């Protein structure tokens, strides 16, 4: 059965649901001595859209085969260097606060995830996506699309220039607002390392109210999605700088490249 829409659910009710789930996980972790899961449980009901879209069977453990231990070869034939700058895709300058986001993509042993594809997408400074189903009555910016791509460097590094996205309302519950965020999609050296996630900004009061960020039940893991303001990344008279490092799944599913050990 499709649950009835519950437009009158309040933030208080959603926040209480979130707190109850977090407490349950914490109690279970304390009782079993096992760590909290890194990834969100797929059946996280405070995010209402998860209700009918999570499997109810336990996932089946599989040993990755050769094809799953490699990724498609993306390269500079696929992605142009200027695609990492979201502020130069149109004739004029986009509105908003220009920012640089940089960091490294590593595997679970700290080895660089090199020459792999990173895709990013986001709302504009007003909190509006260039997406026909986004009905938020905030202005589109003719000089901002909000889509970028890049290939990581030999040290796993990435760097993008964009506009700080705005917060925006959504219909999960009454007066629901997403904290400002940038969507990221990563490919590792193994397909099993595939990761899609969202980067948040430090000090955002909406973060603790958001059923999507709070779907991660481990507070330390949750905090790893928040970029750090880094004044050394900021560029004088130009852009504010943020640093955000990303760690894909561990060594188990990763190609062994012993010569990389020095770079870790």
């Amino acid at each position, binding site marked *: 059965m499709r649950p009835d829409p519950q437009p009158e659910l309040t933030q208080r009710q959603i926040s209480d649901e979130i707190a109850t789930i977090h407490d349950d996980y914490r109690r279970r*972790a304390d009782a079993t001595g*096992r760590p909290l*899961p*890194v*990834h*969100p449980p*797929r059946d996280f009901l405070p*995010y209402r*859209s*998860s*209700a*009918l*879209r*999570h*499997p*109810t069977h*336990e*996932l*089946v453990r599989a*040993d990755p*085969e*050769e*094809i799953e231990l*490699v990724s*498609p*070869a*993306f*390269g500079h*034939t*696929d*992605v142009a260097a200027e695609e990492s700058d979201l502020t130069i895709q149109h004739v004029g300058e986009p509105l908003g606060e220009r920012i640089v986001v940089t960091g490294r993509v*590593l595997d*679970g042993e700290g080895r660089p995830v090199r020459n792999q594809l990173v*895709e990013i*997408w986001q709302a504009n400074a007003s909190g509006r*996506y260039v*997406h*026909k*189903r*986004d009905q938020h009555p905030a202005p589109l910016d003719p000089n901002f*699309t909000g*889509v970028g791509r890049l290939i990581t460097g030999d040290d796993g590094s990435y760097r993008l220039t964009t506009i700080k996205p705005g917060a925006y309302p959504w219909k999960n519950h009454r007066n629901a607002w997403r904290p400002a965020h940038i969507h990221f999609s990563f490919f590792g050296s193994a*397909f*099993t390392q*595939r*990761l*899609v996630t*969202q980067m948040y900004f430090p000090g955002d009061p909406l973060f603790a109210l958001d059923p999507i*960020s709070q*779907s*991660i039940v481990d507070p*330390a*893991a949750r905090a*790893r*999605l928040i970029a750090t303001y880094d004044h050394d990344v900021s560029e004088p008279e130009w852009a504010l700088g943020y640093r955000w490092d990303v*760690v*894909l*799944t*561990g060594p*188990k599913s990763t190609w062994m490249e012993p010569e990389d050990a020095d770079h870790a």
Partner: protein
Amino acid sequence: MPETPFLQTPSQTVGPFFGFALPYAGGPEVAPPWHPSAIRFHGTVIDGAGVGVPDAFVEIWGADAAGRVIAERGSFARDGHTVTGFGRAAADRDGHYSFTTIKPGPTRADAAPYLLVTVFARGLMHHLFTRAYFGDEPERNAGDRLLGDIDPARRATLIAQADGDASYRFDIRLQGEGETVFLDFDRIDDPDRTDPDRTDSERDG
């Protein structure tokens, strides 16, 4: 608590508004339609109420016809000729997705051929992996290690069935009756399902 240096970054949903960003021209065309071995690989992503999921997308990744991993670039900038093995297709309003690709060969002598299928959607907190084997390979499927481990009652959810000339259908049921078998390649991610008697080093190995 001191943080060890290389802790995993958690997943978040793709959300509803990826359509202007992730799907790309040529994404569903892993092989050009004129390719002599081209097949259609398609299906519907279905939710727990039996309704197609319009805001989902599917990625496939597979070996070449001889079972070799493909190292060709050009999955984004298709040259109209090279088969790269990777594709991405957004679901349509009915939740239907469709690729043109080639049927991969088995990557090992004792394995069955399959495509790795990854599903992303609004409301899905973390992508789901599954494998699409092929219904017209009964002998190879019978000897495949993973298929042999699957509850026979659910095994058919991993088999793409021929539904026409050079066409295979692979529906993906996220929840409920006929729920697709989804795969976990990295049990270490999920402490809830890790045997507590094993040491970390065993888990890593």
